[in-house]
């Protein structure tokens, strides 16, 4: 309640003094109606923009450097673990490096335009493809694939959804403020979650842990 605010409040009080006296002359109820009208109008505008406009402003849409056809590769190579494998120290290799892709893609195999980009931009130049990873957790999170896939025997779909059968990579939505992928906070702004892979926030992990192991676990179980 600093001094400035106090002053404006007093300022408006003087204006109100004249208004009250003049208004008494023009009758009581008409002013109220207009105020309510404005109230409803402003409420509607803000409410709708909050629920519809705001999410699109908050999340930026980015395209992947090139499209990757999971379905085709799964047919060719077998399961997910042909490219996303466990190293022998139990750590998870995650997205394959250009080098491991080159085991098959020494030269252009198919005729798709995306593969041409891959060969020209990344294989020849020996660069890594800057994939935008949908399920990327922030730096403070330690996620052990070994604990979940090997020890708990979970399948990939339960967290990553049906990306394995997808032919096109959907655009990557990123929260402009936090830098998180939208898959983490959740696609639906209302926070309603149909499948487990629609959202992977801390609470979602906690719920599953609570169900499966009886407790949310110590902090350092998932943090680093």
């Amino acid at each position, binding site marked *: 309640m600093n001094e400035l605010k106090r002053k404006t409040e007093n300022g408006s009080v003087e204006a109100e003094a004249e208004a009250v006296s003049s208004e008494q002359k023009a009758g009581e109820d008409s002013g109220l109606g207009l105020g309510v009208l404005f109230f409803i109008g402003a409420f509607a505008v803000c409410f709708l923009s909050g629920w519809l406009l705001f999410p699109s402003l908050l999340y930026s849409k980015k395209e992947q450097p090139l499209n990757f056809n999971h379905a085709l590769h799964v047919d060719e190579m077998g399961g997910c673990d042909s490219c996303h494998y466990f190293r022998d120290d*139990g750590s998870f290799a995650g997205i394959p490096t250009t080098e491991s892709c080159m085991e098959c893609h020494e030269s252009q195999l198919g005729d798709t335009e995306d593969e041409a980009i891959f060969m020209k931009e990344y294989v020849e130049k020996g660069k890594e493809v800057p994939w935008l990873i949908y399920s990327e957790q*922030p730096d*403070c999170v330690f996620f052990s694939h*070994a604990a979940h896939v090997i020890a708990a025997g979970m399948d990939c779909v339960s967290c990553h959804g049906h990306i394995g059968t997808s032919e096109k990579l959907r655009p990557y939505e990123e929260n402009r403020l936090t830098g998180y992928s939208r898959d983490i906070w959740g696609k639906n702004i209302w926070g309603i979650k149909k499948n487990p892979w629609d959202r992977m926030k801390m609470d979602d992990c906690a719920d599953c842990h609570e169900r499966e192991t009886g*407790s949310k676990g*110590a902090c*350092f*179980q998932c943090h*680093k």
Partner: protein
Amino acid sequence: MTKDNHGKAYKFGMVIDLDKCTGCGSCMVACMSENNVPFKENETDKKDSLTWMTVYKLTNGKPFPDTDICYMPRPCMHCGGKGDHGHSPCVSVCPATATDYGYDTGIVSQIYTRCFGCRYCMVSCPYHARYFNWWDPKWPPGMEEYLSPDVSPRMRGVVEKCTFCYHRYQEARDRAYYEKRDTIAEDEYQTACTQACPAGAITFGDLNNPDHEVYKLVKPDPHNCGRPRDPKAFRVLERLQTNPKVYYISEREWVRKAGDNYRKGEWDKKNMLTKADGQH
């Protein structure tokens, strides 16, 4: 692994032999390098210097030539708190549960993304084992290359502390899961300072497991919150009932006495007692 994980909870602890420690500082640098601890141009204000592992230099206070010194490396004690129930001095005061006691490992965790920097835990810790990021950590251009992905670098305004290299425990667990094993062997999870110590003065392991070296060295008393039964072993500030998990060993009596506070004559009376015990 939870509080009631069918009884197989670890209780990781450390034993430091103060007669072997030469004060060389390898443990301090190994800890800073392992845990992405930043460094500033002027680190001479030791009350504003992030050193998770700090080596104190103790002296017996005698004049020349009877002076004696002893180096004491001090990591976080991962206190078990009164009665070893996990209410460590810091865990019991943190308002946002940014620091918590892991019952499955006995390690006090510190989550840098939840800590909002009220520093109450830093005031509650009698060992000064907690450090606050007064400054934004900055690495000279190019040096960010040597940062390890296993520990998230901190930001200004949060408290940080030694975590007994918990990321190494996570890696050992990953390997155990991959090899379908359930427990971690003693040499699979060792802290960076233990591994680096050239004098072999630091030993790390599970205090609940009798065949681990740390248990053999100090023989913690399970009915007495892990109080060491070996007369040469002691814990710092034992009388505050913080029940720290770091034990120190020394042949020198003045070093053992420096581990806690004793009023006039109390130490000698205590010694008479233990000597009496020692006889029969």
